């Protein structure tokens, strides 16, 4: 018996084990917690700790949280705000990140490493610290805000003068800090996909009569679509569920869903509602990811892009 086990192990064991590891990881740390959250979302609130209870009548499911999700304005509005904020942040990241990624690929070889380091350098500092730095910058009495205020007041008629530029606790601040935070996640996949492009293709297009702007539209842009999609997802998905940034620099009037989920858990202690929102957010995020997966599969079906 032990001999046969050892034989199996030597024949296939290693490869099976290596393949199984990521699946075990996903099951233990994603699927099981998700099932727990999904179960909580159909439980009932209860004055216990933790504050929910299963059971009740057949079919042992309480859809109250989901009903509220689609009927209560607050939840739909925060979903929409989240999607809009994440969408705008993604678009801005793309607009800012594309020229940077393209510039990186055109930089002299020696410089590239340095510039790439600069892109990832912010990760060496705590994320919270960086958000606090932005809060400091945007706050009413900061030198930055005072400078902006003076500039604004000098440009506009006296009746539109302000005491300080309203930056903190606005939706604008949320988008601004999200763009700042997620920009590297856009630049890096874009750089990876642009860096693989053959510069001879640009020359070929130029040789065939295309000016540089045309070359970009015809050759560079279509070939960088995988990078755009990857960067877009890497920014959009975490941005849509963002909790820390809207909590620290946002306002209650334009709530993002991450903050609402957190408040339901911690403040309202309505765990079924919070779980239902989390499940809904996950489903919402799975759709674009699956679209991306299909796009990738199709790209691979087309074979090596070179």
């Amino acid at each position, binding site marked *: 018996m032990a001999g046969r086990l050892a034989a199996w192990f030597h024949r296939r064991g290693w490869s099976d084990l290596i393949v199984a590891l990521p699946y075990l990881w996903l099951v233990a740390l994603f699927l099981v917690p998700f099932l727990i959250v999904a179960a909580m979302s159909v439980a009932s609130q209860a004055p216990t700790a933790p504050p929910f209870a299963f059971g009740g009548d057949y079919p042992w499911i309480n859809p109250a949280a989901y009903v509220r999700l689609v009927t209560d304005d607050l939840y739909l509005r925060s979903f929409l705000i989240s999607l809009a904020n994440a969408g705008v942040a993604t678009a801005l990241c793309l607009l800012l990140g594309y020229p940077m990624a393209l510039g990186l690929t055109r930089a002299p070889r020696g410089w590239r490493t340095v510039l790439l380091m600069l892109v990832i350098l912010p990760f060496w500092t705590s994320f919270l610290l960086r958000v606090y730095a932005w809060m400091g910058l945007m706050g009413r009495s900061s030198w930055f805000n005072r400078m902006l205020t003076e500039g604004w007041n000098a440009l506009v008629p006296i009746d539109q003068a302000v005491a300080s530029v309203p930056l903190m606790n606005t939706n604008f601040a949320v988008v601004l800090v999200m763009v700042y935070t997620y920009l590297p996640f856009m630049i890096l996949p874009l750089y990876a996909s642009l860096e693989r492009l*053959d510069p001879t293709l640009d020359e070929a*297009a130029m040789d065939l009569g295309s000016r540089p702007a045309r070359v970009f539209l015809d*050759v560079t842009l279509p070939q960088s679509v995988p990078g755009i999609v990857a960067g877009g997802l890497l920014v959009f998905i975490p941005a849509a569920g963002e909790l820390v940034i809207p909590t620290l620099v946002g306002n209650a009037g334009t709530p993002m869903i991450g903050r609402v989920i957190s408040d339901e858990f911690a403040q309202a202690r309505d765990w079924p509602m919070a779980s239902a929102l989390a499940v809904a957010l996950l489903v919402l995020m799975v759709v674009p990811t699956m679209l991306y997966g299909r796009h990738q599969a199709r790209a691979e079906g087309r074979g090596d892009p070179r």
Partner: protein
Amino acid sequence: MAAPFLRIEGVSKRFGTFEAVRDVTLSIDRGEIFALLGGSGCGKTTLLRMLAGFEEPSAGRIHLDGQDMTGVPPWERPVHMMFQSYALFPHMTVERNVGYGLKHEPMTAAQRADRVRAMLDLVQLAPLAQRRPHQISGGQRQRVALARALARQPKLLLLDEPLAALDKKLREHTQFELMSIQERTGVTFIVVTHDQEEAMTLADRIAVMDRGAVQQVGPPAEVYEHPASRFVANFLGSMSQFDAVVTGIEGATARLEVPAFGTAIEAQAIPAIAPGERLTLALRPEKVAIHHDRPEGPNVVAGEVRDLAYFGKDSLYRVTLPTGELIAVHAVNARRKGDKRPDWHDRVWIRFDPASAILLRR
């Protein structure tokens, strides 16, 4: 006399302190296939890129069909290039690749489609119009690149190592196809290659380049049979070379003392040759005959077969001369019976015609 179709006038290109192309002057006629031949780093590709407009000459001018090309960007030049890697657009079908340049032409959609079809017919790829570059073979890709470069009917087509990526059989076939397409379209071709055989079969004229400069220009036979320098002689085909001293001149014939042969030999004199001059005597293997019995006439040297390679249709011998130096002899195996062929360690006589010996100044 009319100005040449393409005139390259004293063109140089420096990258920092490195001079990639030095003072190249060439005239190329309309409808010619012209080859730039040289090893890697000889400047042939830089010269080609200057013709395409990707590099500007540091000095000199390029005139094409009466127009000065200085400062004209690549997208405005009536010059198209077939890249060594073919540089096909991977995200476009064969058809769209071929038609890419045509969208800059004042044509209707129907005219454009007609031209693309004509080009695909020219390279016999019409059935593959909807494929993408990675779905076709290397040889087919090469033909797509050719069709794409020809679609806008350029005045000048530049081909960068057009056959380098193909296997041997396909290369031979494609060579003739390229020549026939050139003949049918009448476009002037400039081919860059490091392969002397490719240059010789394709080109009407060859410019042999070394270290940025043109060493010799001429039709293939002239460059091969009358190399102007030791570099050209060595680059095109193989040669055995020996030191020689001129001992006398009799009309068109020079008498030479060749220490390696241990005997005096005769060779065709070169201009301005004087007794006492030290020269290099170069012999192409196929111009030397190998015999079992001592043949009649001048330029006969004794030797021993040191090495032989039998290729079927011909054989290559390496013969040790009395002084120990080696000479290569290439003989066609015209007979089937092998017993007449020299074998290892046979004592043989070699002989060459005075007109076949090449004299080169050092």
